């Protein structure tokens, strides 16, 4: 029976990138509870991106178990993993987060196109997208604007709305504030937390900026949970 109290669980996970410049990552244990906000700190090359790819199911661990919302990702087929990711995980990247040629509305609604269950949770996806934009402090009428015409801060808020729509159990934010100035950074995080709490969503944010630590329920250092090995070229 799936343990839904744990939104994310990694147990004895090991992964090796194939190729000449091989990179091995081992994670003994990483567990995130439902509604928890966690900051994952790590330097460049510490394996953060590999860890996120494992959680999102775009790569599969060589050994161990990765469970999201109680489902073992490795047990799913490639197609099922893509659908599962759309249904269960909201993603926010650093910059260049949106399709610049598409409208704000299309960007926000895009994950619902691949996640019918997530879509079913919403009676009116357009109204929900508008509400999220409003709650995230975006100006009225932004829905029809082209994403590429917005400021970087506004684009990140649209990315947050896209991650939050349909209330996925897990949101992964990969250094979403790295391209924002300090004031915009604080406002963005405040709005993101407010929405995560409101929806009972688990938030895993990856960053190398330790100054953000105080704002999260828990802070994890990559060096504490993961071992990496990089072969010499």
């Amino acid at each position, binding site marked *: 029976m799936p343990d839904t109290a744990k939104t994310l669980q990694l147990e004895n996970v090991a992964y090796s990138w194939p190729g000449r410049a091989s990179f091995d990552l081992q994670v003994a244990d990483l567990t995130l509870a439902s509604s928890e906000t966690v900051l994952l700190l790590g330097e460049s090359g510490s394996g953060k991106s590999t860890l996120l790819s494992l959680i999102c199911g775009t790569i599969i661990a060589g050994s161990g178990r990765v469970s999201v919302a109680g489902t073992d990702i490795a047990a799913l087929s490639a197609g099922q993993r893509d659908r599962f990711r759309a249904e269960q995980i909201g993603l926010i990247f650093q910059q260049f987060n949106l399709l610049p040629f*598409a409208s704000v509305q299309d960007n926000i609604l895009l994950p619902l196109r691949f996640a019918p269950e997530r879509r079913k949770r919403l009676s009116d996806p357009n109204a929900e997208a508008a509400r999220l934009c409003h709650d995230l402090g975006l100006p009225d009428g932004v829905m029809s604007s082209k994403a590429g015409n917005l400021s970087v801060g506004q684009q990140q808020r649209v990315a947050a709305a*896209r991650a939050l729509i349909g209330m996925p159990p897990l949101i992964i934010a990969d250094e979403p504030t790295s391209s924002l100035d300090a004031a915009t950074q604080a406002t963005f995080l405040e709005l993101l937390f407010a929405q995560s709490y409101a929806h009972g969503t688990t938030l895993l944010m990856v960053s190398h900026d330790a100054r953000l630590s105080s704002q999260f329920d828990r802070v994890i250092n990559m060096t504490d949970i993961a071992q990496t090995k990089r072969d010499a070229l």
Partner: protein
Amino acid sequence: MILRLAFASLIARALTVGMTILAIALSVALFLGVEKIRTGAKASFADTISGTDLIVGARSGSVQLLLYSVFRIGNATNNLTWETYQDIASHPDVDWIVPISLGDSHRQFRVMGTTPTFFERYKYRSGKSLVVNDGAIIDDLFDAVIGADVAATLGYSVSDPIVVAHGLASFTEHDDQPFRVSGILEKTGTPVDRTVIIGMRAIEAIHVDWQVQGQSTPADALRQMELEPQAVTAALVGVKGRLKVFGLQRFINEYTQEPLLAILPGVALQELWQIVSIAETALVGVSAMVVITALIGMMATIFSSLNERRREMAIFRAMGARPRVIVGLLVLEAIVMATLGALVGLELLYIGLTIGQPLIDSAFGLWLPIEPPTLREVWVLLVVILAGAIVSMVPALRAYRMSLADGMTVRI
């Protein structure tokens, strides 16, 4: 939504996409244009003569006889005598016979001597008869009926005088016996449009004083003369019943008094197609290569856009799109570009035809009809679209592999 996003992505790259579509459009227009000219030329040639069972001339090649007697291209190596002509005319299987006498010209147009029967018996485009648009057919010895192109090019109208020149590129004119335009024929799209038609007796009349220096017989005296032709260049023959065609052809080809050749126009046309088919195939091949080059250009455009679009593909993958959606997007993009290219190419073809039709007609005597696309042309367009989809599979599969390898880790 995916379709809307695919179109939005194309519009965002409007310049390169537009150039690709233009390249495909031009190549499609070229290919279809060559097809139009090829089929137009074939139809124009095939429509030039209809209802004539045999063409008879001095012995030469069948294609040569067809070309000079019907298309006014090239010259006869010899004539057939009037006695021989009369002999054939009196053959019991001959239903009708029309003499043709070529050799003189007016400005750049051929002058053809014949009998009034020509206007009755000459048929084109599946049995259409010649129609006099203005005036009347030959009545007087010095009457001339001119084709539509002769009238249009030289600005002639009924009753205008015409002086016939001796030979085809001669400065020596029969100016002592001027003709009068008695009628102007309706446009036919055949060499008749570019022909000045006079009577057989008139051909003899203008040559009465030709050999005698300083002699000029008055026109009225010529009208009273017995002007029996000495020879004719060729003859168009109608046979009493299809089954008798080959018998009469054999009789003429084995005629002992002088070497003759009788040809079936359709068979000679087929020989002509065989001769030109190599050039025709080469022409179609070259234009097909242009289309293939444009499609490869489209593939190169998609390839070159892949790197800058890795982020776009990563976003789609992160949102839950399967790799096959990425492949589908790129193939769809290629189909849209190829379809737009094909449609714009078709439009360009019709614009070109509208502008070029009268010019091609007057310059080459080739009438290219402006008609809805034929089934063959529709197939060509579908093949172009299909080929576009197929060549796009190469960059699409590359994008598929890139999206699998990149996952969500692309950073630009």
